[in-house]
């Protein structure tokens, strides 16, 4: 927990620095390894779902704990597009996923999912900057928000990246953070 204050600064500063994001490159990642889906999209096209599968893992990657891919977040978002988000939001997200493919083609002559991770991150960094100006309506803001909810309410997100205790029993009002280690999921 020694690096906790810097994490907090990152969290409450206006944006994460580019360098902070860059460090993800040195971590092993499964983001580009897989392009076939283990699930069948209900709302998204196969191509959109594949882009989303990569994007959620870049947003919430596997680190010392599993990431969004293992948590099934893309499937979660596809389902929410069918039963939760309003049609306008669904269109924004789908158009955004299409745009990611188009942007990848225009810039690098290949699909988003076939790009190496460094190029994928370059594109996401651009979307992140755009989303900062349009936090409620930009496709990347919507996908990032859905990814965050999907991940932290998933079983792996709640129990491994966070801590989850359905039946705490006692309430202890003042415990060293070290003892708990992570934020409570609920």
């Amino acid at each position: 927990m020694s690096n906790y204050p810097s994490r907090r600064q990152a969290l409450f500063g206006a944006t994460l620095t580019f360098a902070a994001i860059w460090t993800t490159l040195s971590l092993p990642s499964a983001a580009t390894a897989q392009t076939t889906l283990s699930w069948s999209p209900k709302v998204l096209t196969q191509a959109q779902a594949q882009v989303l599968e990569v994007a959620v893992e870049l947003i919430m990657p596997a680190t010392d704990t599993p990431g969004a891919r293992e948590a099934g977040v893309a499937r979660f978002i596809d389902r929410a597009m069918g039963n939760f988000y309003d049609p306008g939001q669904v269109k924004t997200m789908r158009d955004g996923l299409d745009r990611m493919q188009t942007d990848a083609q225009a810039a690098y002559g290949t699909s988003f999912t076939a790009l190496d991770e460094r190029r994928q991150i370059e594109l996401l960094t651009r979307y992140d900057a755009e989303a900062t100006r349009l936090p409620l309506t930009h496709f990347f803001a919507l996908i990032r928000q859905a990814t965050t909810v999907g991940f932290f309410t998933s079983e792996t997100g709640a129990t491994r990246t966070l801590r989850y205790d359905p039946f705490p029993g006692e309430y202890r009002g003042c415990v060293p953070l070290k003892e708990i280690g992570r934020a409570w999921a609920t």
Partner: protein
Amino acid sequence: MANLNTRARKTNTYDAIVVGSGIAGGWAAKELTEKGLKTLVLERGPMVRHLEDYPTATMNPWETKYPGGKLPAAEMKAHYPVQARTGYTMTEYTQHFFVKDDEHPYTETQRFDWIRGYHVGGRSLLWARQTYRHSPMDFEANAREGVGVDWPIRYRDLAPWYDYVERFIGVSGQAEGLAHLPDGQFQPPMEMNCVEKDLKARVEANIPDRRITIGRAAHLTAPTEEQLAQGRGKCQNRNLCIRGCPFGAYFSSNSSTLPAVERTGNLTLRPGSIVTSLILDEKKGKATGVRVLDEASGQEIEFYADVVFLCASTLNTAWIMLNSTSTRFPNGFGNDSDQVGRNVMDHHLGVGAQAEAPGYEDKYYSGRRPNGIYVPRFRNLGDKASARTDYLRGFGYQGGAGRPGWERTLNVPGFGADRKAALSQPGPWMVRLGGFGEILPYADNRMTLNTALKDKHGLPTLTFNVSLRENEIAMRKDMRLAAMEMLDAAGFKNVVGADQGYGPGLGIHEMGTARMGRDPKTSVLNAHNQVHACKNVYITDGAAMTSASCVNPSLTYMALTARAVDHAVSSRRRGEL
């Protein structure tokens, strides 16, 4: 035919009828049946059995149908535009316990937030469980200040009944020895966290008239033999109470009074029974029973009893009275005073302050305490120091300290491993104080029967014309400033005061529509909660309240109910009903 009618009448006759199965109705049923009366409880909504009918009680976050258990915006708009106004009650976890607004229309001359659940147990299943006694000052204030009418009882009349109710329901809390917030029969208090303890120490040192205590809440922290025997257990600190408690650890009709009642063998509980009016025997001047619209069949059925307890909740109790017209009561049952439906009160809230508490970054907590801290009223206590010139009465604060979790992070920019790591840590310690202010009784803060707009059963609906007045508006300014003053005094940073606005009803503490009083000309109920003009009808829910105090009212409804049943049963025994 006559024979048939006689038989039907016999089948449908009980010693007592209780209308409503919420916090007051459950108590009426318990006391009546335990005293040997064959009692019929009529509940308009469906059955909710303790444990069996809490479908979301142990649901995990990953088991929801919708992201985060939120309901889709289109569904909220179509079915829950009013229920959604609290901002916290309507979720996938709770929606089965709240009415669909489109099925239960009403009219708002001015904004009125009617938050309700129609089912066995009513809002006793959903309440915030904060449990405080009205004080001697609360019962005397109207008379002293010439506001509304005088309560026909005093604190000493209710004190033994507060004791009695508290022992049964189980209230955790800390005795403080304050005249204006009387102590009760407490189970061990819940624990404050480090920032709350710090707040308490610094505020009490720097502002001598302030006291901070742990919330007094109807959760078992040390269950008694009696409570254990009822199948109730100790609070497990899940803070998912609103879904129904699998441990029966907080008090509700479902977990506590109704199971106790069933054991007596004297109870008939009839869900799906919408009471539409009281039946009056004009010659005897007594109610003989009630008319029920049977939800399933659409048929009207009459039920008869020696004594009727109306505990249908403040607004629906008054609705039943206004809908019960006769030659004797052309303006509604027992409404000689024209006070039925008037003096609508609530607690006004949504104003206070919050701050960030630095210095505890390495501290956290475990368990989710279903309770907060409480700041007892400190204004207008009868001494010079606390007297205000700008408003009457006062307010308390409910609040607490905690570290927000991942929900704070939805719009945090960036992506990747560092963001994930940051979001996996708790946020900064935040402290919040939210005021609960007393609303005075105003005759023209009123609900009326609307025969032009009918509900799906063809029954008249309600129209509300209720607003805050100068006294409450002046109080709200002080509620914001005094909260900021306390957080400043504690040395916390980024202190922000806010008035987020309030619609009457949002406190979900509706009161006053059939008030108690000494004079039948100006009140509806006497000192024993009997309708002045019809002594075998008792009203013991929030409708009976003559003034609101600033403390949460449910305990007072329960105490009034137990006391009124005691009166009813002994009067009946003496042949006086």
